[in-house]
């Protein structure tokens, strides 16, 4: 069992460094270094530089800062207020009322933003005060927001899918298209839950909304125009063949800048703040990716991923059993790690297993995203919990409990995905050239 000692050593060093609070990217480099020094006779430092340079200067990676920058610009516009005004007249008559604006708002905003937290902050900034004013149950307001904001990761554009695509060298455009239908299905499941809860709950008595005529509703919808335009620009440019996924991100930045300019919220301060914020955030992810690239190389030299994949293959798990093992594994990992770290950290081992089991890697990307979405709302480390804590002054425990139904719905979503894989694979596979 040479493998076992290697695994134990890797895990011990990893947990010591990560757990004691060393920055994730640097901790990964440290683990990789230990692994290579002990198990190979290769020049570790030179290997580290070759692989980190090659990862850091990758062209596909450039979509990442662009989508982050776009989110930073939109965060500083009036987009969320406008979305609430446009959406609320349509949502009010549904069972569950304006709580649906949380979910639909997040779904719509997810289509322009690549991150879950950006979706959460932008939508929550507006909807929380409005919903509170109308006496909707607090737990429902917070829970749906925490859950639905994770759609930011699945509905394209998605930072998680970019990172996944870069890590396994799959087409990012394909992954983006794979996320659309499952994202909409998940949103529908959230909305279904809200409707059922509102019908069954005894104390559901929000303030009633003024009745609007159909014409007035339509007129209010004009506020949705800016965000719809942005969605069309980003997704449309990819679908019509004007741009690849990377280039669509640049469109998004320009679109967001124009939108901010149109609303008068673009000035030197907001511009530089958004730019510096985007620079720092993408640097944060780049450091993790650099560390992970080195770690996965180091593991490759030790032969560990192959050994583990062969071990799991020897268990002769069915595809379903393998997915269940991975589901539990990622839920546990997701309690402690952010989504991007847990994707990049595990792919070196998981990718060979998944390939060997004959699982479609595009489909698996969506599976990973659902699981990473759950990680956003599981304590103790869950970014949506942190962000909501900052926004609402609720305790973490309260927010986490409020989000439990959403967590369960996401678990259900995993089974839906397994039962109907076409949800993820149909759209990327049917994407045909257009006449344009």
């Amino acid at each position, binding site marked *: 069992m040479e493998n076992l000692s290697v695994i134990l050593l890797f895990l011990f060093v990893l947990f010591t460094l990560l757990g004691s609070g060393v920055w994730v990217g640097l901790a990964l480099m440290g683990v990789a*270094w230990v692994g290579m020094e002990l198990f190979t006779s290769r020049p570790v430092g030179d290997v580290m530089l070759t692989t980190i340079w090659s990862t850091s200067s990758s062209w596909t990676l450039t979509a990442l800062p662009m989508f982050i920058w776009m989110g930073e610009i939109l965060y500083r516009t009036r987009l969320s207020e406008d979305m609430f005004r446009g959406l609320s007249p349509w949502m009010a008559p549904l069972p569950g009322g304006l709580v649906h604006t949380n979910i639909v708002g997040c779904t719509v905003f997810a289509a322009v933003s690549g991150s879950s937290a950006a979706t959460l902050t932008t939508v929550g900034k507006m909807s929380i005060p409005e919903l509170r004013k109308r006496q909707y149950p607090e737990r429902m307001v917070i829970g749906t927001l925490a859950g639905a904001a994770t759609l930011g990761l699945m509905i394209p554009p998605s930072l998680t899918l970019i990172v996944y695509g870069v890590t396994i060298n799959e087409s990012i455009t394909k992954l983006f298209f794979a996320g659309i239908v499952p994202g909409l299905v998940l949103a529908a499941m959230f909305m279904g839950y809200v409707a059922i809860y509102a019908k069954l709950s005894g104390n559901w008595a929000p303030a009633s909304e003024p009745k609007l005529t159909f014409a007035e509703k339509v007129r209010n919808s004009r506020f949705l125009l800016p965000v719809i335009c942005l969605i069309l620009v980003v997704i449309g440019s990819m679908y019509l063949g004007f741009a690849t996924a990377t280039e669509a991100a640049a469109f998004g930045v320009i679109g967001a800048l124009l939108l901010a300019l149109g609303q008068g919220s673009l000035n030197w301060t907001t511009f530089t703040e958004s730019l*510096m914020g985007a620079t720092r955030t993408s640097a944060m992810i780049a450091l993790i990716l650099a560390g992970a690239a080195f770690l996965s190389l180091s593991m490759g030299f030790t032969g560990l991923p192959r050994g583990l994949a062969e071990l799991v293959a020897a268990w002769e798990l069915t595809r379903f059993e393998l997915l269940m093992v991975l589901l539990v594994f990622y839920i546990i990992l997701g309690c402690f790690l952010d989504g991007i770290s847990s994707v990049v950290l595990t792919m070196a081992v998981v990718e060979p297993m998944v390939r060997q089991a004959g699982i479609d890697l595009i489909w698996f990307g969506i599976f990973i995203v659902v699981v990473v979405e759950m990680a956003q709302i599981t304590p103790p480390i869950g970014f949506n919990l942190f962000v909501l804590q900052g926004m609402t002054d609720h305790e973490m425990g309260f927010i986490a409990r409020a989000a439990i139904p959403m967590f369960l719905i996401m678990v259900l979503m995993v089974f839906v995905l397994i039962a109907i894989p076409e949800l993820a694979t149909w759209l990327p596979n049917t994407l045909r050239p257009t006449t344009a």
Partner: protein
Amino acid sequence: MIALRKSLDALYTAAGVLAALSLIAILLLILVQMLARWTGEVFPGAPDYAGYAMAAASFLAFANALNRGSHIRVSIVLNALGPTARRWLDIWCFAIATAVMWYFVYYAQRFVFWSWKFGDVSQGQDKTPLWMPQGLMLLGAVILAIALTDNLLHLILKGENRIHRNLHDQASGE
């Protein structure tokens, strides 16, 4: 001492500004490449240049991101500790990180030196001598190593951690 403090902070800011300019460069490169394609022009090497700008944007921003608390770390144990124990654990973290980064810098300068010595050129249409963009990576790495050393010494000598967690930046990446 004050002059040193000021010049170090200026160094981190300057690197951050350079990183931000690299980000703008990525945007412009992608746009120009698309425009070129639509108008039937050719802009050879655009993806390669965007890749170099990506590396520069990342590495030059590392120190700035560190000082603003944007880099992710697992803080469960740190938060559970009392002030003294917490300080020791923070020193351990900075010491490890500083060591890793200076190790990286040592090999990065060799890496860039050999690229220069071999006359390594990009395999893409840009044919850029690689030591140039790699040099920017080295520069960023040196500045991060300095920033980590700076923070470590500050923590040991003054007993306070200058970095405070920046939730907004960390969360925007998720």
